[in-house]
């Protein structure tokens, strides 16, 4: 099926009608292309090496996540949410349950807040390391990629210790977490945050920050001005690299971020290099957050009180007490489950890629009536045609890499 342009007879920016420019040719970039990393397609109109027009064609991975969200209950949907941004799955889980808990009016325990903060920051590090490493890889710097991926492996080990799953932990639950963490997990994080990561970060910095090839290929490429960033709803590191001072962790503090000391990272250039620098600095800030949070995890229960009737009781309560057993039944029977208020609510968290929001409409049942996701990748990919126009075809991987498009989140 050929993709039709919005208006095939329209004048392209150069001022001449399309028919007069027979030397323009069309290049199909993707859907399977090593430099796109994920399944997305671009139809590029080229004038020699220069891109005159780029039309993204998405939807190859659309699998109806939002429709599933209307069928699965608040805990079940977490496994689907996990698979949206599969580079940092736990950040999506936290965003989803942040919204659901807000809808139900649950205040999670301090211990849960701290552990969620730590894993959210680990997810951010995992995401940024992939983005930095993969964009370097696309531009020919394979060593930087290896250093970054080495650290991501350690983050996966931490997730495995915590939940038993490496990629999609499905660790958060309404009102708490799947299980409590133990001391070896904390020891693992200490080692990662104090010893392993700072070393790797310094290595990647030394490899890339003043690397002539890397700087030449990213500086001044894909410039996004501050006004455009706001007008086109860019958020997260991409907006901050354009000078938009907005970070939901600071502006609308959630979890334990209000207690922790960290800085918002902004840059002014708005080009690929600025986005790279912002991500590298954010990695350092995330490491700082983890170092503080891991020493300050409060004692206490991981889940909210069983009396609230909102949280799955742990196994010993289910099997050894009648209240626990009844509560377990209440949440798992198809005709019981939660009774949230008949209301609708939007809540957002700062995911690694930007503002990850959920608009949940509830009709009083145990599952959402509508579970809308505000996916940052979707909005950032709509920036792409504007960023790439006028640049060369070799800049496509640089811009794509700096936007960090995750197709599963893009298409849902």
């Amino acid at each position, binding site marked *: *099926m050929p993709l*039709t342009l*919005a208006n095939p007879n329209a004048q392209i920016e150069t001022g001449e009608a399309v028919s007069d420019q027979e030397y323009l040719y069309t290049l199909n970039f993707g859907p399977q292309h090593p430099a796109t990393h994920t399944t997305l397609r671009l139809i590029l109109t080229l004038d020699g090496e220069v891109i005159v027009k780029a039309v993204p064609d*998405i*939807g190859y991975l*659309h699998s*109806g996540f*939002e*429709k599933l969200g*209307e*069928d699965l209950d608040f805990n079940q949907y977490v496994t689907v949410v996990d698979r949206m941004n599969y580079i940092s799955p736990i950040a999506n889980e936290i965003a989803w349950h942040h919204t659901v808990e*807000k*809808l139900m*009016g649950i205040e999670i325990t301090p211990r849960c807040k701290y552990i969620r903060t730590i894993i959210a920051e680990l997810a951010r590090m995992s995401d940024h390391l992939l983005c930095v490493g993969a964009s370097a890889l696309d531009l020919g710097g394979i060593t930087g990629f290896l250093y970054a991926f080495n650290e991501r492996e350690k983050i996966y080990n931490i997730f495995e210790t915590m939940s038993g799953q490496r990629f999609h932990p499905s660790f958060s639950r309404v009102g708490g977490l799947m299980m409590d963490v133990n001391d070896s997990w904390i020891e693992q994080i200490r080692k990662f945050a104090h010893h392993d990561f700072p070393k790797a970060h310094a290595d990647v910095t030394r490899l890339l920050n003043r690397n002539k090839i890397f700087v030449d290929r990213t500086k001044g490429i894909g410039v996004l001005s501050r006004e*455009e960033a*706001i*007008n*086109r*709803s*860019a*958020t997260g590191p991409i907006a901050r690299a354009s000078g*938009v*001072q*907005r970070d939901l962790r600071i*502006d*609308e503090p959630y979890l334990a971020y209000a207690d922790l000391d960290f800085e918002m990272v902004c840059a002014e250039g708005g080009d690929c290099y600025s986005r790279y620098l912002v991500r590298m600095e954010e990695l350092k800030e995330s490491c700082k957050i983890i170092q503080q949070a891991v020493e300050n995890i409060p004692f206490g229960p991981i889940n909210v009180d069983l009396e609230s009737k909102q949280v799955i009781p742990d196994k010993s309560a289910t099997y050894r007490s009648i209240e626990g057993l009844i509560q377990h039944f209440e949440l798992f029977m198809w005709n019981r489950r939660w009774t949230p*208020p*008949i*209301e*609708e*609510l*939007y*809540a*957002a968290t700062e995911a690694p890629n930007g*503002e990850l*929001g959920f*608009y949940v*409409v509830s*009709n*009083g049942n145990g599952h959402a*009536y*509508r579970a*809308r996701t*505000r996916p940052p990748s*979707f*909005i950032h*990919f*709509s920036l792409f045609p504007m960023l790439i126009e006028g640049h060369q075809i070799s800049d496509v991987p640089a811009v794509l890499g700096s936007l960090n498009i995750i197709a599963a989140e893009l*298409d*849902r």
Partner: protein
Amino acid sequence: MIDIEASLKSTFPDKVYAKSEFRDNQRIDVPVSDLIMVLTYLKNQLKFDMLAELCGIDYLQYPSARDRYGVNYVLSSTETNQRIIIRTKTNDPDPVVPSVVPLWEGANWLEREVFDMFGIRFEGHPDLRRILLPPEFVSYPLRKDYPLRGKGERHNFHQLTRAES
């Protein structure tokens, strides 16, 4: 903090918009006819310069809902960090809402997605095509009358045979 309700009341004295609050969400229900006027005012005068989110909802079977489709605009201000949700409602047989692409370029794909999933037309949109689903798809899957399970359009898709390819 800007008192949005008061400033709306003083600017449009003859209009009454229902305002509601839930947790920290502030919502204003605006009819489709006034939508662009209110959004322009919010953007230009009250500095709600970012459209954080735009989503569609099908209220078929929803308890005590009178209109079928809802379109929500979550605006945020990068200056005051305030948020406001503008909700508007539209109905069958031809659900139409004016496009906000002239105000926020970021609404372009978001509106296309709502059109793709709900069939709500955005009048004045520069390029209203399906975005996630293939162009030959005929129905709108996030509508509540679209089944979750069972055979659907996918089974009717034309399959390429070896001779054709």
